């Protein structure tokens, strides 16, 4: 399969995204409060969206652009639901 983008650029992009996923998981594991963990989950959703986008460039399929639309909405709903639950449990 021939690429119009050089494979080196895609490998560097994937390695950046993998490093950021590892760092976000570090914050998810040792966050002092639960709010830090929610923020880390938000960032992990963004990193996974970037993974899907770069992967769609790698295999040259435009149909994968449906996934980031869904992931962004679901991540927003999850974040707001958990935060509202915490707020009402404390107050």
């Amino acid at each position, binding site marked *: 399969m021939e690429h119009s983008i*050089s494979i080196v650029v895609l490998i560097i992009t994937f390695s*950046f995204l993998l490093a950021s996923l590892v760092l976000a998981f570090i914050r998810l594991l040792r966050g002092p409060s639960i709010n*830090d963990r929610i*923020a880390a989950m938000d*960032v992990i959703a963004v990193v996974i969206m970037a993974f899907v986008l*770069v992967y769609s460039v790698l295999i040259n399929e435009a149909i994968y652009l449906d996934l980031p639309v869904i992931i962004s909405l679901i991540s927003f709903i999850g974040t707001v639901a958990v*935060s*509202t639950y915490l707020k009402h449990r*404390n107050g």
Partner: protein
Amino acid sequence: MDKIIISAFLLAGSFFILIATIGLVRLKDLYSRLHAATKAPSFGIFLILIGVSVYFNTPMVYIKSLFVVVFIYLTAPLSAHAIIKSFQEKDKDENEKES
């Protein structure tokens, strides 16, 4: 020429996301961590979406990318606001118990 532009956009976007997660790990406070975790990933995903839309170059891809950008830039400040609101309520309760 197209190739260089798309590669530059993809690399810049992933670099911004990497910077954001470095800030998420290294900063000290929840407020500064959320400052790093809200703005830079939005900009990074915006750059990656520009690169992907220039790569495919069809109208449907442009419309979907516009949807993603609008959703991200509408929902990132709202979710950060919700997180900080719940954190502040907890802070206030603990301070009242102490005093």
